[in-house]
């Protein structure tokens, strides 16, 4: 339990610190750095408490379930590998915090800085102590995100934003490959628990998926560790504040890839494929990075390429799949962290004090800033692999390993190439230190400013340099046990016997080392000439290529996206119809018979005529679609035929509904038509018409064919039998359709009236704003498109309308009351009532008619829905479910027996809602036209007066 808590605290501390600094973002720099430093220091203390047992062979371990179905557990464990990395992360992290405190100006957004830094630290820590592959991935991607924030910290600088995006794109993208690889690894291994996976290397390597998962995982590692050809993001990440560079590129971000290679060594390493890829990529990167570093002038850029090179070396070592090579790698990780962090901080100091990082402008700084010179020179020497420093030992170990592998079948090739890389390393390291600190000042200005910073700023690099020196002087004492344990952890086997010392006698490694030093000196001597040649060679610029390819992708993806998504209704519909047609054709292929076996009804001549009427009218609609009034008349014909169809085929309710809906629709269309432009339509091109026509005919044939197939089949047993049997006895009505609507499926009807109510409200909302804005202007500028009769309210029409209203309303009442037993019902009654009132509006005008009504349409809709709902809820009181109906027969003297059904109350709700919605829509529409006309008249008379 204590262990679990320790582990949890360890990984949580940085996140807590991140949150604290973010929340206290308005506090001072001191507060921020204090929090961050405290978190790092606290972590170190916790880690130290675990160090002994871990090196002694214990593996502190804790697990909590997080997503069991996924296999994602919150498993934390510290083995020596994790311990070493955690130590680096926290230790160098602490030093970086201290350094950053002095490096950053007090007025910078230090809260944001330290929050991001701590977020990064936490993520990094998570990677190295994660005991679950998926958990590791979580932290892995978080490091990409956090580094994005850190690199882009100086947001106003273009290079910072670009560098941040590039780092995110490459490492985040590689991370995605890693996700694929790791999930695959887990699936192959049958577990996402790292310890379990590590024990199942044989299974993994034997799996046919091994090459795939290996490739994906390596992609993740190589991008993160800036291996060639994914190295280019790293130099641009130097746009970050130097403390960030020091942190990301010495101990953390880029080391994550190396860490993962080491972590998965027992599972992945050892195959020819693995060795071939990893070794060659590492070797290439090592040589390439070192070569480029030779010719860089920006201090941080040199360090960046040196980092690339050093990482290449580590990767190459791990690629060997040899235990001794793993040992070399483990030691070099420590060495690199120490000297590289020291160098970055020194570079930061130099920049901070001189205002430049261009080594061509600097020189002879040893006099001006001796302490910095001492620190940086020692660190550079370690990087060069010069004795008696730590770098020397690990480089020796590396060179010692190289003959063990034959590259391309040539046993000498690898040692030779490795020596070449080492030569370059010596070259750039010496150039760095020599150029900066020895010789004469090259430019006066930066030199004049230069002096050693205060102790706070050089303390951290000094400490690291001391470490680098001690790693050379007392390696066994300082790093022996750890390195051994780490090696064992990497390989999953006991570490080989080893001895870390400066002097191993005269062996091949030492000879190669000497060659490298001599070669490095030679390079430095010939540097000017070589530089000229390098600059003539004009190698392709990776960053520019990356950006160009992004711009290219953006341009074309944008073009394609815009082209596909042009908001064209015609295209949307074309796509939809085409998809449907294709799907129907697919369905047809499932077979079955086309014509069924039902005995058909012979058609009467009249039916044939009605059919011809419908088809002629449809053709006329299509043909004459620009002549709007005519089209409406044709539509009326279609509606008429449809109504007759319903009458003929035993559907009186449908006929009533169709008839009344039809006229309301026509009124609506006429109202709208008055304001819509009547100009000739845009003519489609002939090919387009043909295309649409073909699609239309295909669609028509298919739907008609389906209808035929359906109509010619005998129906099977249907739930409607129940409705027919229970309408009277259970629903209390003889009109089965109505009983279905207000009882069996009243819930549908509730939805249906709500649809209508919403339509009314939506229409109201749509039209209410027409008086203002562009629409208002357009309406104000409205002029008649045809000369109109001056008579607004024809006498006979008005007089007739006065009697038509009560007559029609009485019919509506009649239809409503009988609906439960005979054709009719609330919906039809509402439409009839609405028509009755619309006749008033038609005859006497909106204002006159509207002034006389006593309740608003909104209220009607609301009360209608509420009535229907209340009917449904009433059943609750009787312990029944929603919309349970009841009915009873009553008798009163004189009047006789009559029926009352709760369904009729429901139907009242239907009536009110439908009536309200129809009136709201039409009245509102007619109203804007009236306003428009009035505005027009007002304008006209004003114009006449002027």
């Amino acid at each position, binding site marked *: 339990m204590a262990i679990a808590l320790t582990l949890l605290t360890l990984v949580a501390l940085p996140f807590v610190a991140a949150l604290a600094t973010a929340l206290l973002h308005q506090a001072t720099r001191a507060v921020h750095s204090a929090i961050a430093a405290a978190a790092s220091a606290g972590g170190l203390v916790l880690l130290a408490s675990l160090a002994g047992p871990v090196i002694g062979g214990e593996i502190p371990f804790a697990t909590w379930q997080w997503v069991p179905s996924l296999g994602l557990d919150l498993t934390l464990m510290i083995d020596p590998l994790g311990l070493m990395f955690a130590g680096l992360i926290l230790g160098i992290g602490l030093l970086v915090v201290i350094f950053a405190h002095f490096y950053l100006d007090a007025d910078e957004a230090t809260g944001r800085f330290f929050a991001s830094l701590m977020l990064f630290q936490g993520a990094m820590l998570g990677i190295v102590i994660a005991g679950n592959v998926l958990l590791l991935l979580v932290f892995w991607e978080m490091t990409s995100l956090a580094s994005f924030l850190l690199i882009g910290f100086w947001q106003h600088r273009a290079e910072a934003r670009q560098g941040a995006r590039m780092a995110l794109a490459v490492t985040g993208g590689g991370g995605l490959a890693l996700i694929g690889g790791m999930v695959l690894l887990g699936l192959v291994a049958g577990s996402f628990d790292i310890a379990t996976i590590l024990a199942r290397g044989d299974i993994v390597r034997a799996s046919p998926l091994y090459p795939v998962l290996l490739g994906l995982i390596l992609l993740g590692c190589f991008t993160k560790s800036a291996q060639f050809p994914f190295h280019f993001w790293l130099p641009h990440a130097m746009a970050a504040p130097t403390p960030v560079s020091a942190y990301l590129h010495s101990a953390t971000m880029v080391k994550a890839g190396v860490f993962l290679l080491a972590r998965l060594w027992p599972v992945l390493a050892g195959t020819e494929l693995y060795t071939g890829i990893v070794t060659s990529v590492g070797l290439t990167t090592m040589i390439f990075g070192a070569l480029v570093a030779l010719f860089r002038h920006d201090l941080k850029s040199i360090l960046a390429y040196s980092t690339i090179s050093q990482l290449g070396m580590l990767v190459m070592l791990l690629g060997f799949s040899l235990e001794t090579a793993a040992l070399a790698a483990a030691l070099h990780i420590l060495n690199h962290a120490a000297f590289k962090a020291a160098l970055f901080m020194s570079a930061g100091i130099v920049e901070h004090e001189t205002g430049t990082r261009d080594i061509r402008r600097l020189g002879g700084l040893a006099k001006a800033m001796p302490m910095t010179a001492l620190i940086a020179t020692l660190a550079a020497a370690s990087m060069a692999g010069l004795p008696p420093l730590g770098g020397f030992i690990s480089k020796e170990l590396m060179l010692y390993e190289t003959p063990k592998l034959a590259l391309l079948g040539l046993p000498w090739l690898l040692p030779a190439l490795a020596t070449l890389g080492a030569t370059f390393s010596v070259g750039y390291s010496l150039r760095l230190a020599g150029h900066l600190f020895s010789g004469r000042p090259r430019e006066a200005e930066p030199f004049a400013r230069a002096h050693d910073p205060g102790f706070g700023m050089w303390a951290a690099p000094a400490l690291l340099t001391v470490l680098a020196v001690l790693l050379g002087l007392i390696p066994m004492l300082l790093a022996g046990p750890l390195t051994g344990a780490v090696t064992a952890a990497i390989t999953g086997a006991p570490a080989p016997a080893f001895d870390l010392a400066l002097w191993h006698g005269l062996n091949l490694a030492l000879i190669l080392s000497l060659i490298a030093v001599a070669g490095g000196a030679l390079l430095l001597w010939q540097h000017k000439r070589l530089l000229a040649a390098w600059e003539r060679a004009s190698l392709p610029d990776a960053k520019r290529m990356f950006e160009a390819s992004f711009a290219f992708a953006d341009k074309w993806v944008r073009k394609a996206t815009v082209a596909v998504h042009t908001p064209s209704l015609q295209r949307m519909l074309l796509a939809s119809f085409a998809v449907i047609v294709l799907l129907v054709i697919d369905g047809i292929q499932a077979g079955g018979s086309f014509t069924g076996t039902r005995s058909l009804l012979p058609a009467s001549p009249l039916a044939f005529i009605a059919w011809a009427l419908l088809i002629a009218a449809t053709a006329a609609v299509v043909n004459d679609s620009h002549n709007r009034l005519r089209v409406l008349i044709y539509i009326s014909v279609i509606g008429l035929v449809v109504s007759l169809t319903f009458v003929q085929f035993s559907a009186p309710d449908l006929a009533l509904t169709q008839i009344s809906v039809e006229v309301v629709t026509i009124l609506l269309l006429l109202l709208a038509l008055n304001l819509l432009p009547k100009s000739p339509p845009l003519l489609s091109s002939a090919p387009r018409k043909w295309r649409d026509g073909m699609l239309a005919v295909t669609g028509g044939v298919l739907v008609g064919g389906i209808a035929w197939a359906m109509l010619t089949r005998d129906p099977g047993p249907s739930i409607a039998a129940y409705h027919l049997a229970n309408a009277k006895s259970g629903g209390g009505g003889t009109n089965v359709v109505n009983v279905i609507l207000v009882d069996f499926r009243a819930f549908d009807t509730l939805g249906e009236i709500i649809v209508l109510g919403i339509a009314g409200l939506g229409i109201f909302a749509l039209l209410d704003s027409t008086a203002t804005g562009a629409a208002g202007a357009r309406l104000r500028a409205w002029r008649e498109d045809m000369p109109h009769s001056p*008579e607004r309210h024809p006498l006979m*029409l*008005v007089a007739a309308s006065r009697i038509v209203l009560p007559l029609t309303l009485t019919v509506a009442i009649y239809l409503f009351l009988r609906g439960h037993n005979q054709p009719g019902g609330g919906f039809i009654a509402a439409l009839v009532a609405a028509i009755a009132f619309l006749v008033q509006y038609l005859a*006497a005008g909106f204002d006159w008619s509207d002034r006389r009504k006593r309740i608003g349409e909104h209220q009607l809709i609301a009360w209608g829905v509420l009535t229907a709902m209340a009917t449904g809820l009433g059943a609750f009181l009787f312990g029944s479910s929603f919309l349970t109906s009841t009915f009873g027969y009553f008798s009163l003297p004189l009047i006789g027996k009559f029926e009352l059904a709760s369904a009729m109350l429901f139907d009242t709700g239907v009536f009110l809602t439908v009536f309200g919605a129809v009136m709201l829509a039409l009245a509102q529409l007619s109203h804007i036209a009236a306003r428009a006309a009035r505005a027009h008249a007002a304008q006209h008379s004003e114009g006449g007066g002027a």
Partner: protein
Amino acid sequence: MTIGVPLAELLVSFLIVLGAGFALIGSWGLVRLPSLMERLHGPTKATTLGLGAMLVGSVAWFQLVRGEWTTHELLVSVFLFVTAPISANMIAKVHLHRERQGEPSAQPGPAGVPAPPPGGTDWATHSAPQLGSPGDFVGD
């Protein structure tokens, strides 16, 4: 009142054929008469009686043949009698208006163009009803 079924059937059949015949004649008038004003006479009249006969036929059929007392068909006629003149009036107004506007599709028929009413005014279709006149009784 009891009529033998064959006689009742005969009556109903007669009414049906009469009604449908009038409907057909009305529509025939619609086809053959020379201009809208003449065509208007065909349907609006012949079909009123046409439908009337068919509706009476329906009443008679239920009454006499099936022995069911029905009257509601007559309501259709009531509605038609109230509305048919208005429909005709409105259609005629459209014609008058279009004709006055010189619409090529609304040529004057054989009766020519109606003369304006005496008194220097015009028909309401061409000139809005004067304030206070019966035509102005709507109120707004």
